[in-house]
């Protein structure tokens, strides 16, 4: 990154604007299409998907249920009906394949809001702020089933901004706009990536799935890295990059195995040297994908 450049400037010069934004555009498209599918019914009378992200029915046959909500029902001491269990199983399998926090970056309605806050934060040069431990979300996640068990109700769903926003968009917001604004301001002024990166227990839940999910981003051509730090600058969970990108000496990587990687693909976009690519968690090296003359003499392990 040259001084004065914004992250990704080199990628735009090398690859063109569109290629340097393709995963971002694909994510925004995904978020819009999913929201559009939910809204097509109430707005246009085209009923492809009914319900909301808590539980939905697609084309009258495919049930999808949020596993975290189902977990809360179970914790509250009730056995949900088969439809919800089936729907949750389908969702679990899907995210185990495509990467747990794909939910966060490709589906969740809060993501565009926090991305916007982060963008504005960079533009305004706001630095510092409160420091939340990124363990907070895990503690909150642990508290959720506990609350359901103790109170007998889905207590978290009284305050959960994620389900609140989607339900609001599809069924009517009420005062939920205030929650959106609060999260935006939290991320803008209080702490960088405070909500999605530190606090949100829904993200933590999908992060657990991501820890064992199949599709991952890998720094497959990490030997090309010129340390421009663009990927660190754009990554919403930048702590996940270092082991994969710089861990060759410790025998780590090149695949980002941390569940907190959201598979957003932004690092792929902004890297001018095409270090990153989507791959599977079983990839051990880049050779099978595209042989690259690395210039070093160590024999490379062939991907398993």
């Amino acid at each position, binding site marked *: 990154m040259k001084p004065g450049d914004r992250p990704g400037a080199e990628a735009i010069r090398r690859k063109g604007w569109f290629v340097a934004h393709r995963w971002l555009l694909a994510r925004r498209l995904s978020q819009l299409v999913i929201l559009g599918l939910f809204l097509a*019914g109430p707005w246009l009378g085209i*009923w492809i998907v*009914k*319900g*909301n992200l*808590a*539980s*939905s*029915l697609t084309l009258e046959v495919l*049930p999808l*249920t*949020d596993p975290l*909500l*189902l977990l*809360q*029902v179970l914790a*509250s*001491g*009730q*056995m*949900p*009906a088969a*439809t*919800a269990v089936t*729907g949750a199983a389908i969702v679990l399998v899907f995210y185990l394949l495509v990467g747990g926090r794909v939910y966060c970056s490709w589906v969740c309605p809060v993501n565009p809001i926090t991305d916007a806050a982060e963008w504005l934060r960079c533009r305004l040069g706001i630095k510092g702020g409160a420091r*939340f*431990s990124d*363990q*907070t979300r895990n*503690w*909150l996640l642990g*508290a959720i089933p*506990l*609350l*359901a068990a*103790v*109170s*007998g*109700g*889905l*207590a*978290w*769903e*009284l*305050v959960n901004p994620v*389900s*609140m926003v989607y*339900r*609001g968009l*599809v*069924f*009517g*917001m*009420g*005062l*939920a706009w*205030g*929650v959106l604004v609060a999260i935006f301001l939290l991320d803008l002024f209080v702490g960088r990536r405070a909500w999605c990166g530190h606090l949100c227990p829904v993200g933590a839940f999908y992060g657990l799935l991501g820890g064992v999910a199949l599709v991952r981003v890998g720094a497959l051509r990490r030997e090309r890295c010129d340390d421009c730090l663009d990927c660190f600058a754009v990554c919403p969970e930048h702590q996940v990059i270092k082991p994969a990108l710089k861990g060759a000496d410790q025998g780590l990587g090149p695949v980002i195995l941390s569940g907190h990687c959201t598979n957003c693909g932004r690092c792929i976009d902004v890297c001018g040297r095409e270090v990153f690519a989507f791959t599977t968690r079983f990839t051990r090296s880049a050779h099978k994908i595209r042989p690259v003359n690395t210039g070093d003499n160590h024999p490379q392990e062939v991907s398993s």
Partner: protein
Amino acid sequence: MIGNEKGQKGFDPGRRRWLTDGLRTVAGVALVAGLVGVQQRQARALPATAIRPPGAADDEALFQGACIRCGLCVRDCPYDTLKLAQLGDEVALGTPYFVARDIPCEMCDDLPCVKACPTGALDPELTRIEDSRMGLAVLIDQESCIAFQGLRCEVCFNICPVRGKAISLNKQHNARSGKHALFIPVVHSRDCTGCGKCEKACILDEAAIKVLPIALAKGLLGQHYRLGWEQKADAGGSLVTPDTPHQYNLPEGMRYEHGGRGLLPAEPGGAAVPSPAPSAPAPYPALGPGASLGPDPSSALAPDIMPPLPPAAASPFPANPLETLNRGGGI
């Protein structure tokens, strides 16, 4: 953990920071969880006007544990009766409910809302809408209900989908006019589903009949009560020494009818004429004198129409038996 270099005297800044960070996080999460827990307790208090869809558990806490707030019941409600509670509503966020005075439940035979529920929070074992108990209608303001003024309204009676069973009309004496009847709507919990159509239809500016949660609307008779007439019916006969028949010192040739007509000439032949039997048994015992109105008011009214008195020539007594009764003394 940031660093592990031990400082002097065993002081370890990394460990200390880890500890304080951890404690801060746990304390923060515990605070949030506590607040949310309290919120959940308060959220169980459903406003009396918010009615849950058919098949929802009576116990609000149970329902809030089973409902995942997806809104599929709302989507499949053909009358847009159901809605999801929004942030700021008094109902637990995201749960389905309806307000009878706005849009009541139309009691679909095929229960689309129950079928749509993915979790079973709306009980899939509910297959007949007549068996649902969303609430209970209560004629809560007798001062405003115009039936109590002696005016004919009966809109709630007529709109009731379980017509004639969930709401019946009980005929009572109109003491104000002295000669008219009051047609009083009476709700019967045995058949009322709590759909709220009566509340919606009530002609007052503010409904006099309202659907309330059953727990709020129903009383409960003490378990030790034994109703004599029920015991008698169960046993097939009186369980106590029967009362001796009342003896009246009636004028000769007269009899007394207890159904409200009073002193009547005895029929020739001595056998007391039974008052005309109701053409159809009324479904519920009348509250006051007079029969209740069953499914068809016109047939139910028939029993109380007086038969014509026999011609005066057939009796040795004056046409008005009271003259005989009151002879020789004033009242």
